[in-house]
C-alpha cells in the first residue's frame, strides 16, 4: 500500500474526526462539511466563560491542504468576530496555524508554530484560549487591538453586541 499525499491526509483527517466525535472537548464541535470532502470542515466554538464571548456560538470553517498534516489548515470564522487576532474577513491569526516558514507578524517563536503532531483539536483549543486571552502583539484587527488596549469596557461592549448579532438577537 502506497502512501501518497492524498490518502495519508485523508486517513489522518478521518482519524481526527473519529477522535473528535468520540471524545469531543468541551465547547467544541467539528467535522467535515460533507462526507464527500474531508478537506473542508465546519466547526462550532462556544464562547469561553468569563469572557465577553460567553454565551456565543461561533461557526467557522477549516480548510485543509492536500499535504496535511505537513502543512496547517486555514481557519476562518463565518460570523462577525471582533477580536485582535481575527482578521475582518474572519481568518484566524494564531501561531499554531502558521508553518514555521511563514510568519506574517514576526513575533511568534517557532515552538508555538504548526507541526504535524498538532491536530484539529489542539487548534480549536488554542482558538478557545485565544478568545479568552487575545494577543495584542499580533494585530490582525488593528481596530480591535486599539480598543482592547485602550478601553477594555468598550471592547467588551462591542464584543457582546457582535455576540448578540451572531445569535440573531
Amino acid at each position, binding site marked *: 500500500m502506497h502512501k501518497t499525499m492524498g490518502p495519508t491526509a485523508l486517513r489522518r483527517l478521518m482519524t481526527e474526526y473519529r477522535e473528535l466525535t468520540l471524545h469531543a472537548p468541551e465547547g467544541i464541535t467539528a467535522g467535515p462539511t460533507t462526507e464527500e470532502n474531508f478537506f473542508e470542515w465546519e466547526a462550532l466554538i462556544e464562547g469561553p466563560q468569563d469572557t465577553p464571548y460567553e454565551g456565543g456560538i461561533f461557526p467557522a470553517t477549516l480548510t485543509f491542504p492536500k499535504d496535511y498534516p505537513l502543512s496547517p489548515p486555514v481557519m476562518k470564522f463565518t460570523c462577525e468576530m471582533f477580536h485582535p487576532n481575527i482578521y475582518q474577513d474572519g481568518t484566524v491569526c494564531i501561531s499554531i496555524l502558521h508553518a514555521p*516558514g511563514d510568519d506574517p507578524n514576526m513575533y511568534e517563536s517557532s515552538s508555538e508554530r504548526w*507541526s504535524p*503532531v498538532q491536530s484539529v483539536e489542539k487548534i480549536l483549543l488554542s482558538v478557545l484560549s485565544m478568545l479568552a486571552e487575545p494577543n495584542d502583539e499580533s494585530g490582525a484587527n488593528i481596530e480591535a487591538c486599539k480598543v482592547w488596549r485602550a478601553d477594555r469596557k468598550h471592547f467588551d461592549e462591542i464584543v457582546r453586541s457582535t455576540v448578540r448579532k451572531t445569535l440573531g438577537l
Partner: protein
Amino acid sequence: MSEGITDPSDWPIEFKSLREIDSHLRCPICKELLRAAVVLQCSHNFCSECIRRHLDKESSCPACRVATSTSQMRRNVALDEIANNFGDCRSLLLNTLMEAVQPKPVVRPVPPPQFVKEESMDIDYDSPQQKRRRTSTRITNRNVSSSQDHTDIAMGQVTLDDDKDDDFVLNHRDSSPLRHKGKNVHRSTGPVLRSRGGRAEQTLSQSSQSSQADERHEPTNLTKQEPSLPTASDHFHNSAPAPAEVQASLNSSTNITSSTITTSVASIASSPVIGPNLVACPICDKGIPEPYTNTHLDKFCLAGRTDPDYTVPYSLISKQPASVIALYTKQGTSTRDVVPDTNSSLTKPGTPGRSVGSNSSTPNSPARQSTMQWQPQMSSNGTAPRQPMFTPKPAAPEPKRIPKLTYSLLNDKQLRKKLQELGLQTNGDKTLMAKRHAEFATIFNANCDSTRPKPLSELMKAMQVWERAYEKDLEVRETQRRILDQQQQAQRQIHAAKEAKRQAKEDAAAAAAREAAMDSPGATPPSSQSSNGRSTFVPNQANSNAVNVAIASASAFAHAAKYADEYAELIAEVRNRLQADKEKALANTTTTITAEPAPPRSAPSQ
C-alpha cells in the same frame, strides 16, 4: 467511511495499558501504527515515510523541534517489529477482549471449533495470516449469529477473499495483498529457520535409508573435496570424524553416515541462523564464511556481483537429502544450485568464476546494475529479503539509499538521466521530474527502513498512482487558475463599463451645461443669422463642438448602459459556469482521493 481507522480508544477502558501501548506504537504524524519505524536523535519515533516527508519541508523534529536531518535518523528495528506484530494481532486481540469483557449470552448449538484442530487441518501452504483472518471473521460472526458458524467454516476461504477486497480501500495494513505477500514470506521463513534442526533430523532419519541414493549427487566430488579442505571441514565438524572417516563412512555404512550428518545438522541448528562459522554480511546479510568476509565485501557485495558459493565446501549439505539442501539454500537471496565444481572457487574464493549465471546479473545492463544495488535486498521474484530475526544484527545492515539531489544544480538532461537510472518515467518538465525523483527517493528510502520491505514492483505501482494524482492535481489547479483569470477579466470589464457609464454621464452633463450657457441671452452668439427663432445648430465652432460632444457622449452613454447590462449578463454566465467547473473539479479530486487506493481505474466519474 471510517472503516479501517483504528484508534487507541478502541481498547476497552479496563485495559488502559493496552491503550497506552497502542498509542505509543502510533506515528504522531499519520496517527497510524508505525511503519518502518525510525528514531531521531531526540528519541522520538516516526514512520520513516512520514518523517522523511516532514524533513523535506523542515529540518526539525515535529515533536520537540530539535534540529535534525535524515542522516541522523536510525531504524528502530525492534519497535518496527513490535508495531508490525501488534498490527497483525490487533483485531483478533481486540475481538477476543471485547468478548471477554462483555460476555454475551449466545447459545451455541455447536461447540466452538478448536483452533488447534483447525489449524492442524490447514494445509501447509496456508499462511498464518490467513489463519488469523479466518478465525477472526468467525469470531465476529459468532457474535452476530451462532447459526452461521457452519457456513463460515465451510466458506472460510471464500469469506477470506471477500474480506480482502472489502477493507482494501482503507484497512490496507491488514489486508493489502502486498502486506500479505511480505508477511507470508516473512512468516514462512521464521518457522523454517527455527525448526530447521528438528525437521532436518527428522528428514534425515526418514531418508537415511535412501541416503545412499542421495549420495549419488556428487559422490566423486566429495571424496575429492574433503581431503583437500581439512581446515574447512574442521570448522564445520567440530565433533565430526576426520575426513577420511567421513569418506569411509559415506561409502560404506548408511548408519554411520546418518549419525555423523545428524550431529552436523544439529550443530547447524543450534548455531544462529547462518550456520557455523558463517557471518552475516553487513551489507547484504548473506552468510559468508568468516575468512572470506573481506573478499566478499570488496570483490562481490559492493561491486554488485554474485559471489561464488562459499558454503558448499564448508558443509556436507551437498551430500544431504534434497530437503535439507532446500532448507539450507532457502536462506540465501539467490537459490543457487549446489554445483560441486567448487574446487576452483574453493581454492581461489576471490575469483568471480561462477558469478556470471546468477539470477540478478544477466538481465541487467551493466549501467543499470551499478545503480540498482537493491537487487540483493529485493530479488526480482518479489520475495522479501531474508530475515535473520534471531541473529544479532551487525552494526550497519542498511541497504543503499537513494541520495538526495540538489535539483537546482542539475539540468534537465542530468535529471532525466537520474530518473532513467532508477527506472522512472522521464516525461514532463523539470519541476515534475524533480518532484518525481523526490517522491520515489522518499518511498524507496522509507521502504529500505522497513523490516518488511515491499518488492520494487509495489513501489513502482505507487509511483504510477502518484503520477495520476499529480496529473489530476495539475488539472484542478489549472481549472482554478482559469476560473480566477476569467473572474478577474470579468471584473475588469465591469469596471470598464462602469467607468464608461460614469464618463458618459459626466460628458452629457457638461454638454448640457454648455448648451444651457449657450442658450442664455448673455452668451448669445454674434450670429449673423436673422432667423428669429432659436437655432439648434449654431454655426459657431465652439458650440457645434459642444453639441457634437453631447451627442457623442449620449451615444456612448447608451452604448455603455447597454454594454453594462451585457457585461453583467456575461459575468453572471461566467460565474455560473465557473461554479459548475469548480464543483466538477472538486468532485473529481474527492473521487480520486477516495478511489486512489483502489486498483487503477481510468478516469473516475467524470
